[in-house]
């Protein structure tokens, strides 16, 4: 019998499996035959023959773009193996009795919170007919303040990911929750007071989960709770211990800071408080007139970060040099610390200016240390803030938000030791993916197989699930009740917007099952916890808290702390030798948990502009010394482990440092994320999770193609695209700064201008506060149904983002300045795209919008050629999902889904304008200023985007455009763009001012 015949032989039907499948499905399960139900090979074969299109996703040799496209098609098949709600095949009837105030076609917004790294960010979820389509920031939530970051924005796509795990499995066999619960109770009953039971979680801030785990540990006194988050804050905790003798959280108040020193901290780009910090930071940098003031940011960092790119003075320093700078600074300001010489890359002049600046701003300065900095740097930051009188002004300390904070590295190491010693009988992993993320030296993957019963709750059948005895699908944050605390301790109730798609369970329910109650629902558990907390007020406080998205007055109060006497004297200087490796979270896919999210895979890195991959990043000088070029594959050998990675040169990175972004090189992420990039975790050690010396790098001679959305360009000063100057220069010419208008431009036109009598929409983008964080890009993608195109298509220049953040470098390659310039359609009043379209598919409307008529477009692409800003995007292939499937449910019903062969571009969110027009019309009034908020504007934490009616002299957009810093890009072409820009300003220290004179 040859193998093919064997495949075709019908397998005996397993009725047990059939029953299990029916039990495991919720609601009505539709099936066509018992074979189908059992998902036998014969049925799969039948599927291939009968429905080749639906069966296509099963083929493993489909290329990546097809994978992306077929993501949805696969759901049709998935629908056969487990029941999904809402099932697109079902018949719908309208409400017999509609819920009160429900208007079909009008979305509803619910406040909830999404957790990232264990900390909550408040969101308003937009729901269309019960289907969440978009997440917006929640202005009432302290970690959002109305803004949203790209990662949280994109989680709504993960909700509909057809690759999410859909069923409980036991050693790879299909199972169900009931079997799991009974197996679990059997296991636990065999343990003496829970001896051998271990729980592994990531960072936990959820009060309900914490109280559940507490109760569980009381029930099973011999059980242990371990924690491991790959992006842990161990050094932050250790620094606090060093400085204060106890674990405390540090909260910054950038609104009070005039001078800020960042010691390797990317407080604007990563961390649970980044949106709030960005908001406060940019409020102090917003300059409209010469009377406005700016804070001053000093940064020392190894690799360019969003924070570093905003700096007025930035130094690219090796990690050990950052510590050296911190020690020298502490010594200079009179603290007792062991300090060596000033690092080579820090000039005395720079150092003196910095010290002088900090001392001159006692009480209004701030020193911030990065999460990945060693404990001593944190301790120095605490000591400096105390010395400079900043405590209580620009920095406050609170109880830790994380429940029972421990060192995650030690906690995981202890677990690993116990597994090796054979003491672990049952390991319950609530979230996380330790097989993939654990440090390489712990061999967690191998040890996991020694645990008799291992349970993994996870949204995907990932690397850890595949090696665990049990896998339980985890609910998405939009599917289950929970609660979470924000960076400042404020608690939010997480409310679901949709019933779980794939029979998922939340962590609350799994812990309840451990405690013996497998039937408990998250809703009862969360409500039960808060009923105790709110006491008699519960009936009024609970609905209010759910409605607001935040529990009132739950923010942690500042604490008074005193610095330990010998806070800084305990830490000796450790030398780091050779080439250094720095591990960082990937800005888009985080620790790897968003690997299967196409929006985030295709989101360009803010600096490299790479999509779909990570790379071994190094400075130009280092690459030259090592003899490697972009896309050369090198072997990285570190502490006995090695991986192969492509090289990418990153200007502004410290020499002799290789940055490896974590989160790539996944094997079991799903069809979007599998095999992208290289796995930096394979090099990471538990002793040195962030920085290490002694990296060996050897070129292999091979090359690997990387997809970048932008070639790297130095700023071309003569094109005047990015105009920048210093605050001093602005103050010298407050009405007409030379750097804003370097050339005189006279407008000529043979024709009279068109009069815009009603509204005239316009936008201003303030480059001075734009951090380049990409929040606008993902928000736009979500709002406007923008498809992803895949790595190969990005490589040939076909990405579809309607708004992009252009990166330019100024100054030298080794010490560049960074400029972020968000570019979307400028809605030119005299748009060059319009006269060249032979069918009139792009036209002007009476409010000045340059609109695309998709149905009329024949696809000559002349408009794109004639657009000097190159903001038009063409559907070269069928990028958008046209099939009805899970992914199509994320699409905004107010925006057309485009087919292949048509052009598209930013519309200024015309659907939002229309919505406001309807509302205003119903109330018989004009649209108010601020009533139309574009998706990019809503997301922006820096409030860099202002949109409104330029016919309304009182509107914010008119007032912003009146700033002398306002300019239009390429206005010499007479395009009369409606979007204008505010010039970038820097506020250098007077002693160092010559370094960054203006330009354009």
């Amino acid at each position, binding site marked *: 019998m040859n193998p093919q015949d064997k495949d075709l032989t019908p397998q005996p039907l397993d009725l047990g499996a059939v029953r299990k499948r029916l039990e495991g499905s919720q609601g009505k399960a539709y099936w066509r035959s018992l074979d189908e139900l059992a998902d036998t090979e014969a049925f799969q074969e039948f599927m291939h023959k009968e429905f080749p299109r639906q069966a296509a996703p099963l083929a493993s040799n489909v290329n990546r773009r097809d994978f992306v496209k077929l993501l949805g098609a696969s759901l049709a098949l998935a629908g056969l193996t487990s029941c999904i709600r809402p099932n697109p095949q079902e018949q719908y009837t309208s409400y017999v009795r509609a819920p009160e105030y429900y208007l079909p076609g009008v979305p509803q917004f619910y406040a909830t919170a999404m957790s990232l790294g264990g900390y909550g960010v408040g969101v308003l979820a937009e729901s269309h007919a019960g289907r969440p389509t978009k997440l917006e920031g929640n202005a009432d939530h302290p970690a959002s303040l109305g803004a949203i970051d790209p990662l949280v924005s994109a989680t709504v796509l993960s909700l509909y990911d057809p690759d999410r795990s859909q069923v409980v499995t036991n050693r790879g066999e299909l199972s169900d929750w009931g079997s799991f619960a009974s197996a679990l109770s059997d296991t636990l009953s065999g343990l003496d007071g829970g001896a051998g039971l271990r729980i592994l979680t990531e960072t936990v801030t959820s009060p309900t989960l914490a109280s559940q785990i507490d109760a569980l540990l009381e029930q099973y006194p011999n059980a242990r709770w371990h924690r491991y988050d790959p992006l842990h804050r161990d050094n932050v905790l250790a620094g606090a211990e060093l400085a204060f003798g106890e674990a405390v959280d540090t909260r910054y108040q950038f609104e009070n800071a005039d001078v800020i020193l960042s010691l390797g901290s990317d407080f604007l780009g990563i961390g649970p408080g980044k949106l709030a910090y960005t908001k406060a930071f940019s409020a102090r940098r917003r300059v409209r007139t010469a009377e406005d003031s700016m804070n001053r940011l000093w940064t020392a960092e190894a690799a360019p970060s969003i924070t570093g790119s905003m700096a007025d003075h930035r130094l690219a320093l090796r990690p050990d040099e950052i510590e050296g700078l911190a020690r020298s600074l502490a010594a200079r300001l009179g603290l007792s610390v062991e300090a060596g010489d000033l690092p080579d890359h820090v000039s005395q002049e720079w150092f003196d200016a910095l010290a002088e600046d900090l001392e001159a701003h006692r009480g209004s300065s701030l020193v911030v240390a990065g999460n990945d900095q060693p404990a001593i740097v944190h301790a120095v930051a605490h000591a400096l803030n105390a010395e400079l009188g900043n405590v209580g002004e620009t920095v406050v300390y609170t109880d830790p938000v994380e429940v029972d904070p421990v060192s995650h590295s030690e906690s995981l190491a202890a677990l690993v030791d116990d597994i090796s010693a054979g003491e672990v009988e049952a390991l319950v992993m609530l979230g996380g993916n330790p097989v993939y993320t654990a440090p390489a030296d712990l061999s967690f993957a191998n040890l996991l197989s020694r645990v008799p019963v291992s349970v993994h709750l996870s949204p995907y059948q990932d690397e850890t699930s595949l090696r665990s005895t049990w896998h339980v699908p985890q609910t998405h944050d939009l599917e289950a009740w929970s609660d979470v605390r924000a960076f400042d301790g404020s608690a939010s109730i997480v409310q679901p917007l949709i019933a779980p798609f794939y029979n998922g369970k939340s962590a609350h329910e799994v812990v309840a099952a451990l405690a013996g109650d497998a039937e408990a629902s998250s809703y009862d558990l969360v409500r039960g916890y808060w009923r105790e907390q709110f006491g008699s007020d519960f009936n009024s406080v609970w609905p209010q808290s759910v409605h607001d998205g935040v529990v009132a007055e739950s923010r942690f109060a500042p604490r008074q702390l005193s610095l330990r006497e010998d806070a800084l004297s305990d830490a000796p200087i450790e030398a780091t030798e050779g080439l250094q490796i720095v591990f960082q979270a990937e800005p888009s896919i985080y620790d790897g948990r968003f690997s299967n999210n196409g929006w985030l895979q295709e989101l360009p890195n803010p600096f490299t502009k790479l999509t779909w991959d990570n790379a071994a990043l190094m400075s130009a000088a280092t690459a030259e010394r090592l003899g490697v070029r972009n896309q050369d594959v090198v072997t990285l050998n570190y502490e006995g482990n090695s991986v192969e990675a492509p090289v990418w040169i990153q200007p502004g990175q410290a020499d002799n440092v290789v940055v490896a972004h974590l989160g790539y090189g996944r094997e079991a992420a799903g069809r979007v994320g599998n095999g992208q990039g290289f796995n930096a975790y394979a090099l990471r050690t538990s002793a040195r999770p962030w920085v290490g010396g002694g990296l060996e790098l050897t070129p292999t001679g091979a090359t690997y193609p990387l997809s970048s959305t932008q070639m790297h360009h130095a700023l071309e000063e003569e*094109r005047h695209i990015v105009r920048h100057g210093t605050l001093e220069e602005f103050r010298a010419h407050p009405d007409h700064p030379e750097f804003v208008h370097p050339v005189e431009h006279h407008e000529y036109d043979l024709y009279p201008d068109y009069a815009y009598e009603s509204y005239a929409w316009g936008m201003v983008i303030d480059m001075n506060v734009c951090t380049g964080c990409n929040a606008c890009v993902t928000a736009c993608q979500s709002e406007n149904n923008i498809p992803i195109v895949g790595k190969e298509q990005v490589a040939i*220049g076909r990405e579809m983002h309607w708004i992009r953040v252009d990166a330019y470098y100024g100054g030298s390659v080794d010490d560049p300045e960074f400029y972020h310039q968000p570019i979307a359609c400028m809605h030119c009043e005299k748009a060059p795209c319009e006269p060249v379209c032979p069918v009139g598919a792009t036209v002007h409307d009476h409010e000045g919008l340059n609109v695309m008529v998709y149905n009329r477009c*024949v696809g000559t*692409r002349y408009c794109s*050629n004639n657009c000097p800003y*190159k903001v038009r995007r063409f559907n070269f292939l069928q990028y958008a999902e046209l099939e009805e499937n899970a992914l199509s449910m994320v699409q905004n019903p107010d925006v057309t889904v485009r087919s292949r*062969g048509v052009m598209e571009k930013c519309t200024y969110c015309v659907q939002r304008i229309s919505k406001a027009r309807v509302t205003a019309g119903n109330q018989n009034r004009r649209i108010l200023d601020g009533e139309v908020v574009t998706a990019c504007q809503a997301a922006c934490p820096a409030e860099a985007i202002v949109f409104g009616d330029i016919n309304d002299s009182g509107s914010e957009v008119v007032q912003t455009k009146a700033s002398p810093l306002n300019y239009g890009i390429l206005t010499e072409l007479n395009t009369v763009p409606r979007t204008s820009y505010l010039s970038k300003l820097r506020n250098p220290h007077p002693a160092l001012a010559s370094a960054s004179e203006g330009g354009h």
Partner: protein
Amino acid sequence: MADSRNRIAETDRVIGPGQTYTTIDDTVNKPILTSILGTPIWWFIAFAFGFLLLMLYLYSVVYLIAVGTGVWGNNVPAAWGFPIINFVWWIGIGHAGTLISAALLLFRQEWRTSINRFAEAMTLFAVVCAGLYPILHLGRPWVFYWLVPYPNTYGLFPQFRSPLDWDLFAISTYASVSLLFWFIGLIPDLATLRDRTENKFGKIAYGIASLGWRGSAKHWQRYQRAYLLLAALSFPLVLSVHSTISLDFATSQVPGWNNTIMPPYFVAGAVFAGFAMVLILAIPLRKAFGLENLITMRHLDNSAKVMLATGLIVVYGYVIEVFIAWYSGTVYEQYMIFNRMFGEDYWWAFWALIFCNAVAIQPLWSKRVRNSPLALFIISMIVSVGMWLERFVIVTVTLTREYLPSSWGVFTATRWDWALYIGSFGLFLTLWFMFIRFLPSIATSEMKELAHIHENDDAKEVTT
């Protein structure tokens, strides 16, 4: 047969010595009137080759329509790629036909007579190849008719400010006038074939196509009048078609496209490329069919002279482009020229085109070169490549680097780009080999007129 062909002595007269009405008819019509089995084997091989390429063309078109424009290398910023380059290239080739048949007729250049027929056919076939590209180029080719002003219930009309719409009219006018002109010229010859063929099917086909031509004086008088009128009508098209196409570029605001020199520069380039193609087709044709007495060295020499003259105009265009870029004082224009000449991605294309279009034609100053069919054939080939490269540089290289450095990109052609380009030769060659097999590739009626005028040349030559 081969021996007899080799024995024809080369001449630099417009018609070889000793040509009579009979010899002209015999020479030109012999290959057409032979039976299918008598067709030379090389014809079958050449036709099969062309037909194979035509299948490649059809395959690429089907794949393109099934999958989408994305099968090509086009992107943003280079939204126009091979289809537009090939369109401009083919339409340029088409120019020589009209120039030879209409303009030279009006200027009474009798040397046009023996080459006008096949040059017109070449024009027609090139226009077919060219005309399909703008349609295939569209993102949604099936709605190309939206560019046509026709009454419809949508109440929508084309947007006449767009040069792409002007294109539509320019090409369709050119195609229909060329077809008409070519067909009118064919009528007396078709009648000759009708009278001479012994094949019944041929009699019917040629009979219908010759529209009842009997060769009466009235017929001749009206024929001459119509032919002249059509010539007068087509002459402006020589200038207008490529001028209009150049406006696709000139009316934009893309640096490197928005030059006022574009129309004359494009017309000169088109004639240049067209004559190169005439030579590429004429040199093998006269050898294969033994037409050396009708397509003489004089014709080759004159074509080469036109090629040299128009080539020099094109070179002048290159010089002016560089000068204007510098003179404009605009950084975008200056960078555009710098990028064409020294840009990291495409500098080779610019220097290759300079070699092909400026350097390779210089030997044409020498009469010896102009009298060597082999040399002319090679130079013409080089010029054809050069003109393709010129369009590549103008269309695509220009687009890759425009105003915003952040949006600069690279264009890389895919195999489907090449398949559709190479396949279009199949379309051309299939039509061409059908033409030379079934229709007279030389206008016999006009040649007879010429033979009549020159019947005393032999005597004159003896006396001088």
